[in-house]
């Protein structure tokens, strides 16, 4: 039974945007009880289409044509009052960032009750009782207590469960989920995906699931729509799209998923075993860092061991992946090594220098040998500095003459695959992937011995992610770089790392060569991480289909 029909939907962007239509000629239908995944990279118009359904288009963005029919009734041009009746009751939505989607000053229970209040349903006591039921249904532990919690007291996954409870409150026929698991860890993501799947079955809801991750698609989708720059390039049953994609863009996206496949054989790179024979460039031993938060006159501070007794050796030309979920201390470890955060104890020896013992001035000089690539390509470049300045400031601080530094900057830009003339441009003129390349060039500008990449590709679209990973692998081979690669994504780590170190709550639970850690994990935690990766079954199916061909 068709619930929703979208026909030739056009959504116009305000004048001056990069294209006239955010969404162009989009048509699809949604049936009862089905999970429809809309996949695309950022800027493909996938969220816009969903927002149009709910009448939540941003200021200046208007539907320009087409129809959206819900049970045969056009809902694209409703008045605000009529819309309110549909929102929540018939169609509801969950968002990417559960922290900003919940009101930080309201208790969770009150926020769920508000949904009923807005539609004038139930008595106040009835609302509260229903809220507890809902929290229980979405699997929040101790719902009677949870109902009195504020959003900040819950973890990311729990907040997303609360969001789902709110969305389910009025038993909608359609649930729109806009990247609901992007901000979550893999294990939490797997739980939330399982929950959505359960609830869909139980309530026979239709789900529109917007995502950029083909792994997630493979796990939950019945049907898939692939969007590119506002247009649908491919749609069909999940199996067909995933295994027998016809459009080149879809194929490129699927190919770009960093799979758990074996590393590409790379004749230029030294095998992992060899790298371990080469001299040690960075040696960390007994590194500790604790944070204490809260604590007042009457209550003891909460002490968190962010890094506990971390010891390892990084050899010349080797890449070690530090993998873990949020809060595992992996980023803190990276920052302690480079002393962006001062560790409590332990030593970090870079070549022959003990970084932990240096004073401010000598640290400034020594630190040029260890550089960092940052996660967020939008906040890692000074928005008011030209690229030339960004790339030359470091060398100039170390006494390189301006002319020479500028010439080097041009070389570096060429090295990372950008136009050397970009030195005169500002960061906002570049896309996320290009900015990340600039960030890499900046890290290379000081000819470091060790590069620490802190979630360097996590904020990028899959196809861009693949390009940047290729660039890193290429640079690593050409310049014989040693790298610490901090990431939450095992699939990414599998592609680029020689050895992998799995961290949990500040401790290393397992460390070993990539193939061994991912192939025969010894620790239960590593296994649970591996099992939680979306799209595992698809990958096996993919291999089978390749094998039978």
């Amino acid at each position, binding site marked *: 039974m068709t619930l929703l029909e979208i026909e030739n939907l056009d959504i116009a962007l305000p004048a001056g945007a990069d294209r006239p239509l955010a969404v162009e000629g989009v048509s699809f239908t949604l049936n009862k009880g089905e999970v429809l995944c809309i996949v695309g990279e950022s800027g493909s118009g996938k969220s816009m289409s969903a927002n149009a359904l709910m009448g939540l288009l941003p200021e200046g963005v208007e539907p320009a044509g087409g129809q959206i029919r819900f049970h045969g009734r056009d809902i694209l041009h409703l008045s605000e009052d009529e819309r309110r009746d549909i929102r929540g009751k018939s169609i509801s939505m969950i968002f990417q960032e559960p922290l900003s989607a919940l009101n930080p000053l309201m208790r969770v229970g009150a926020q769920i009750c508000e949904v009923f209040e807005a539609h004038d349903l139930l008595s106040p006591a009835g609302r509260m009782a229903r809220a507890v039921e809902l929290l229980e249904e979405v699997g929040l532990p101790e719902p009677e207590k949870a109902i009195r919690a504020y959003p900040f007291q819950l973890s990311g996954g729990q907040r997303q469960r609360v969001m789902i409870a709110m969305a389910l409150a009025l038993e909608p026929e359609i649930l729109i989920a806009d990247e609901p698991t992007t901000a979550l860890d893999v294990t939490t993501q797997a739980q939330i995906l399982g929950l959505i799947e359960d609830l869909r079955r139980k309530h026979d809801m239709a789900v529109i699931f917007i995502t950029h991750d083909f792994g997630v698609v493979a796990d939950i989708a019945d049907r898939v729509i692939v969007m590119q720059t506002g247009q649908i390039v491919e749609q069909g049953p999940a199996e067909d799209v995933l295994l027998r994609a016809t459009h080149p863009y879809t194929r490129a996206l699927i190919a770009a998923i960093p799979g758990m496949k074996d590393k590409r054989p790379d004749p230029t790179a030294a095998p992992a075993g060899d790298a371990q024979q080469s001299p040690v460039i960075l040696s960390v031993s007994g590194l500790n860092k604790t944070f204490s938060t809260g604590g007042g006159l009457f209550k003891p501070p909460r002490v968190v061991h962010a890094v506990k007794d971390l010891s390892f050796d990084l050899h010349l030309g080797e890449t070690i992946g530090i993998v873990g979920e949020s809060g595992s201390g992996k980023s803190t470890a990276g920052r302690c090594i480079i002393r962006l955060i001062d560790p409590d104890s332990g030593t970090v020896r870079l070549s022959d220098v003990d970084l932990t013992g240096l004073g401010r001035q000598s640290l400034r000089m020594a*630190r040029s040998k260890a550089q960092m690539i940052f996660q967020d390509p939008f*906040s*890692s470049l*000074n928005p008011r*500095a030209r690229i030339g300045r960004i790339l030359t*400031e470091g060398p100039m601080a170390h006494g390189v003459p301006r002319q020479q530094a500028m010439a080097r900057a041009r070389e570096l830009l060429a090295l990372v695959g950008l136009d050397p003339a970009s030195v005169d441009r500002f960061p906002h003129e570049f896309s996320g992937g290009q900015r990340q390349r600039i960030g890499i060039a*900046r890290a290379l500008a000081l000819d470091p011995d060790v590069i620490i990449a802190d979630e360097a590709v996590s904020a990028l679209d899959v196809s861009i992610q693949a390009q940047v990973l290729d660039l890193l692998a290429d640079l690593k081979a050409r310049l014989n770089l040693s790298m610490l690669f901090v990431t939450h994504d095992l699939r990414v780590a599998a592609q680029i790392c020689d050895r992998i170190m799995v961290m949990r709550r500040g401790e290393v639970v397992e460390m070993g060569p990539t193939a061994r850690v991912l192939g025969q994990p010894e620790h239960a935690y590593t296994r649970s991480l591996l099992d939680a990766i979306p799209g595992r079954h698809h990958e096996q199916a993919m291999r089978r289909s390749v094998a039978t061909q």
Partner: protein
Amino acid sequence: MLAGFKRFTRNRGAAIGLCILLVVLLTAVIGPLIYTDSPWKMVQRPFLPPFTVDGLPLGTDALGRDVMAGLVHGARISLLVGLVSTVVALLIGVPIGAAAGYFGGIVDDALMRFTEFFQTIPSFALAIVLLAIFQPSLFYVILAIAIVSWPPVARLVRGEVLSLRSREYVEAALLSGQGTLQIILRQILPNALPPIIVLASLMVATAILLESSLSFLGLGDPNVMSWGYMIGTARTVIRTAWWLSFIPGIAILLTVLAMNLIGEGLNDALNPRLSRKGR
């Protein structure tokens, strides 16, 4: 830059404010060239109402001085005091705020307690006390106004620096071996500029008001004609010659209004995402 100006003028209030300010500026710059005589000179019978005698469009005050001449010369003083004292306040507030925000810890505590010390005293009372200690010359009027108006700057800059300090590009600059001063001046402050500019434009308005109030109380420089002084001397005759207080009052009102409109326009232009809808 041009796009920013366009955004600024799309706010109609800001455009009006800019026009008023240009008129005041023009008066301050070329007015004294037309009214070359001292505004203190007595030119006619006292208490002449406006538009009664040719050559004296706004009449004369209680001592027979030309009100128009006073207004024109007063514009120069008001703007001078407003701009210079704001610049001085920025020179005090920005370094203190930047140091507090960047270094944090004990430096932050010390500097912020120092700032709060100034904030706990009502600024107008403090200005009066300062002027009672110093001689009432234009220099000290400006200094007193600057001293009472820097604390909000320091607090604002501290907040901005605090949030910018943890940006990744600042960490990258730190890693690349740049010095503290270079990081503050080249990486952090340029990005903290928009809110400082907005605050500064509003501070000019406050400084003009403060100067007028001080002159009204007779604490201004006795050698310069200012709008506040004109209102102050006219207050005794407000029932018989109301226009003597009314005219400089309107001048103050318009100038301060202009600065506030400009400040709001700047805010909308520099923080486009925060600007209210429907403008």
